[in-house]
């Protein structure tokens, strides 16, 4: 029982009682009509909505003077019994003539009682893709929502998340909406002004109207009208008995356009089905399963995609009410399918609700075998502390499921985190300063720069290009570093906006867009098309994301602006073929985009499916196969010249990690070790005053890199340094005096051109 002794509860109770006391008495029940359904009520719509009754298909062809009149004719193109697939003939129940179907058998039903989904024995190998309609001899059954090579999942019409639209904009568009198995689905008709209609009535049968670009063919029976709550909304009894499904047809597409879609992942030639109308070639849409535990929760949609080896995690937050938040998450454990997982409590958000809005991570990064999230742990206000208390926090995982929380000192929140060749960089606003933190391992964090007095307008953000990290403060000013430890200010930044674009950074300013991969040289890109200039000064809420992708053999910048995907380079920009859907409740809210390491393009968003204070959205992922070979992996650029003595190299290294004008490097160790048959030279450096820690310079195959760093420690030189090589993993162990107890510290470098980092300190 809810504890109702709070004074506010008395206040609410009084208000509710006041309201209830004003309730009128009940009205006599109106007479209930139990007339037999009329077989053909008249909905006169020009070639749009078909009425089906008494087993006779009738095309409705009227837009004329008499809205009550109707012209019905047998439709010779509709054959309700024979289906033809390309190359073979299959007895697919209910398949409309002129369309390609594949027959399917029900394998099982989703045990989740709140959902209404079945699995069928046809999948990608049969040409089945997400979005295709599924029917039986009686009528529409549902829509494909997930595909596997040999099976697929169908969301039935009475699933609470079911939404399907068919029709011709301007004439009639019908939207079918499932509302759970305890409620009848509705069909909402959006009738164009040129079309005359009469009211729908109980007993009418509604069929899909098709249309030149519709995913549904015309004439699939949808259901019988059982109530008409609104002029344009009817509740329907589905034509197909959704509780007794056996043999089904998946409608692949019209016969005359069989092979225009290439979204079957294994590049099968031959029959290919049409995608949903808003998706052109190559894009696949996957509706994420409900992750919130409440089917109709307002979702902000999936926002982050984190890759860790073959595993991937999608994370989104769900605000509810005025002030609370929860986390939705989906894991792909390498199998290629998304399953909801509950990780809110591991990420600072109470899984039972009640976590104050703003608690939890806002930024994710992965590298070196772990993923790190940054944000705040916010505790709800109490009587003693009437304001919520936010503490900067990071969360670390090596499996995307179990996360360790590390709360940093001070009050405030972290705003961004990035992986970098010396470890991790996080930014935040803590104790009213804009701060930058560095960590070698994601767990041990040191503040490396605190900038008080800078206007706090939005938190600092962090960008990485090659060996360079750039932090942009809320006022637009920037600092940069090659180590994450020593920072220098960027004079007069020319870019109004920075965007992390994969392994590069995109700058956009009055002089036009430019891109840097190595953090030092900027390559000018072609001027942005007019449609894109808004990203220079984006209006609030404009979704913007950037990535790098191969386009054939060229590497180009991908931008997502206002639900449209663009590709560009120095030669120009082209609009790509993803235009995300807009439903009657609003446009798809795009929450993120990325290019995976295998080159797959990914867009994350929420498709509004129901109105509310915020539209209720269906979390959705759109993916596209790589447009070219996998993009190059991140290689930390050569930091140093190829000439110079070991002492000079150590000075370069120490100046890179410390104050540039002060450090003078000393060589602690100079060793050459064969790794995988390649001689690898290691320089272990400190500086004369032993103030700035340790750096390891690796020279291999003619390329010299700053490979590993100790942090802000004093250092005992000489024989305290050990190098150990195990396969491609090299570990440097040295004695640090960070806390005067002589901790042994290791710095591990993994060769392979991608990952260079420092591991956590050892226990004393």
């Amino acid at each position, binding site marked *: 029982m809810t504890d109702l002794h709070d004074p506010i509860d008395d206040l609410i109770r009084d208000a509710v009682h006041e309201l209830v006391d004003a309730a009128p*008495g*009940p*009205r006599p*029940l109106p007479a209930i009509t139990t007339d037999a359904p009329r077989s053909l009520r008249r909905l006169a719509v020009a070639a749009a909505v078909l009425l089906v009754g008494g087993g006779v298909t009738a095309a409705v062809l009227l837009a004329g003077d008499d809205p009550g009149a109707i012209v019905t004719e047998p439709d010779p193109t509709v054959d309700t019994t024979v289906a033809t697939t390309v190359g073979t003939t299959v007895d697919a129940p209910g398949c409309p003539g002129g369309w390609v179907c594949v027959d399917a058998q029900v394998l099982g039903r989703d045990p989740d009682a709140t959902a209404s989904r079945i699995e069928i024995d046809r999948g990608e190998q049969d040409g089945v893709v997400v979005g295709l309609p599924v029917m039986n001899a009686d009528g529409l059954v549902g829509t494909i929502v997930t595909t596997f090579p040999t099976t697929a999942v169908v969301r039935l019409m009475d699933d609470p998340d079911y939404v399907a639209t068919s029709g011709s904009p301007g004439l009639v568009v019908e939207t079918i909406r499932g509302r759970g198995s305890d409620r009848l689905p509705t069909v909402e008709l959006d009738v164009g002004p040129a079309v005359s209609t009469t009211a729908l009535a109980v007993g009418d049968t509604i069929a899909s109207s098709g249309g030149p670009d519709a995913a549904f063919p015309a004439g699939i029976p949808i259901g019988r009208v059982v109530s008409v709550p609104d002029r344009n909304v009817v509740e329907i009894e589905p034509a197909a008995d959704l509780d007794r499904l056996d043999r089904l047809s998946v409608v692949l597409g019209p016969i005359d356009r069989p092979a225009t879609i290439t979204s079957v992942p294994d590049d099968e030639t031959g029959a290919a089905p049409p995608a949903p109308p808003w998706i052109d070639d190559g894009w696949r849409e996957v509706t994420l399963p409900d992750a919130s535990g409440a089917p109709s*929760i307002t979702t902000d949609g999936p926002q982050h995609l984190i890759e860790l080896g073959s595993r991937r995690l999608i994370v989104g937050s769900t605000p509810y*009410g005025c002030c609370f938040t929860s986390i939705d998450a989906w894991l792909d454990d390498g199998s290629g399918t998304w399953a909801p997982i509950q990780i809110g409590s591991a990420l600072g958000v109470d899984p039972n609700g009640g976590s104050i809005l703003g608690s939890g991570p806002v930024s994710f990064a992965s590298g070196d075998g772990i993923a790190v999230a940054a944000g705040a742990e916010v505790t709800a206000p109490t009587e003693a502390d009437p304001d919520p208390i936010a503490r900067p926090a990071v969360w670390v995982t090596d499996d995307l499921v179990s996360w360790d929380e590390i709360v940093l000192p001070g009050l405030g929140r972290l705003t961004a985190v990035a992986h970098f060749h010396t470890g991790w960089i996080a930014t935040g606003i803590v104790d009213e300063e804009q701060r930058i933190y560095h960590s070698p391992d994601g767990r041990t964090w040191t503040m490396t720069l605190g900038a008080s007095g800078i206007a706090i307008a939005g938190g600092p953000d962090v960008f990485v290009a090659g060996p360079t990290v750039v932090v942009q403060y809320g006022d637009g000013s920037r600092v940069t570093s090659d180590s994450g430890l020593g920072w220098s200010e960027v004079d007069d930044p020319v870019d109004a906006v920075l965007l992390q674009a994969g392994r590069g950074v995109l700058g956009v300013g009055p002089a036009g867009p430019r891109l840097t991969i190595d953090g030092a040289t900027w390559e000018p890109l072609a001027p942005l098309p007019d449609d894109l200039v808004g990203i220079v000064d984006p209006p609030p809420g404009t979704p913007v994301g950037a990535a790098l992708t191969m386009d054939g053999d060229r590497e180009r910048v991908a931008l997502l602006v206002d639900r449209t995907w663009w590709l560009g380079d120095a030669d120009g920009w082209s609009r790509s073929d993803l235009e995300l859907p807009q439903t009657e409740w609003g446009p798809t809210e795009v929450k993120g985009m990325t290019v995976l390491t295998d080159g797959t393009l990914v867009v994350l968003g929420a498709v509004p499916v129901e*109105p509310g204070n915020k539209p209720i959205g269906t979390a959705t992922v759109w993916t596209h196969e790589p447009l070219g070979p996998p993009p190059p992996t991140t290689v930390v650029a050569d930091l140093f010249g190829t000439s110079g003595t070991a002492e000079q190299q150590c000075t370069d290294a120490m100046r890179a990690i410390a104050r540039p004008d002060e450090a003078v490097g000393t060589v602690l160790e100079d060793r050459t070790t064969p790794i995988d048959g390649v001689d690898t030279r290691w320089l272990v450096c400190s500086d004369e005053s032993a103030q700035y820690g340790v750096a390891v310079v690796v020279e291999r195959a003619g390329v010299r890199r700053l490979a590993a760093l100790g942090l802000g420690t004093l250092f005992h030189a000489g024989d305290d340094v050990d190098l150990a090589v195990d396969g491609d993993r090299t570990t440097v162990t040295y004695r640090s005096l960070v806390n005067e107890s002589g901790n042994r510290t290791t710095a591990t470098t993994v060769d392979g051109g991608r990952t260079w980092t420092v591991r956590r300190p050892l226990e004393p």
Partner: protein
Amino acid sequence: MSEVDHTVDDGELSDAQLYARHAPELVRFATVLVGPSGADDLVAETVARVFARAEWAGVRERRAYLYRAVLNEARQSGRSGARRRRREERAAPTERVDAPEVRPDVLAAVQALEPRQRAIVFFTYWQDRTTVDIAAELGITARTVQRELAAARRLLEEALR
């Protein structure tokens, strides 16, 4: 309206008897959902439609079904109802069509909630029912009830203080 024997299970009542038993409380429920004006119509029309449904004969939890139907109806009519209310307020700003005994701020505070939140507030503060009980009645999870109630409390606290 016929007399109702309250020892009889809902399933044994005729539709008319069932309506007689539950209509007063359903109208109170609808009053919290849509305000006093029109609550009676909403309930009568909704129940009439439910009784006409083919599936009604197979419904076991008849009372819960009726509450859900009224809530769904209130949700669907919410948008057009809000438009109508605004029109009416513009047309007759000094003559409230809603029952005068309800303070306008109370009405406004409740109407600022989502329909489902209003339903949960009704069950909690009028019927004194538990979270689990409400969840079963509305066919949603207890967790959802808790979070919606927390959100509703906060909104009402702001509006009523």
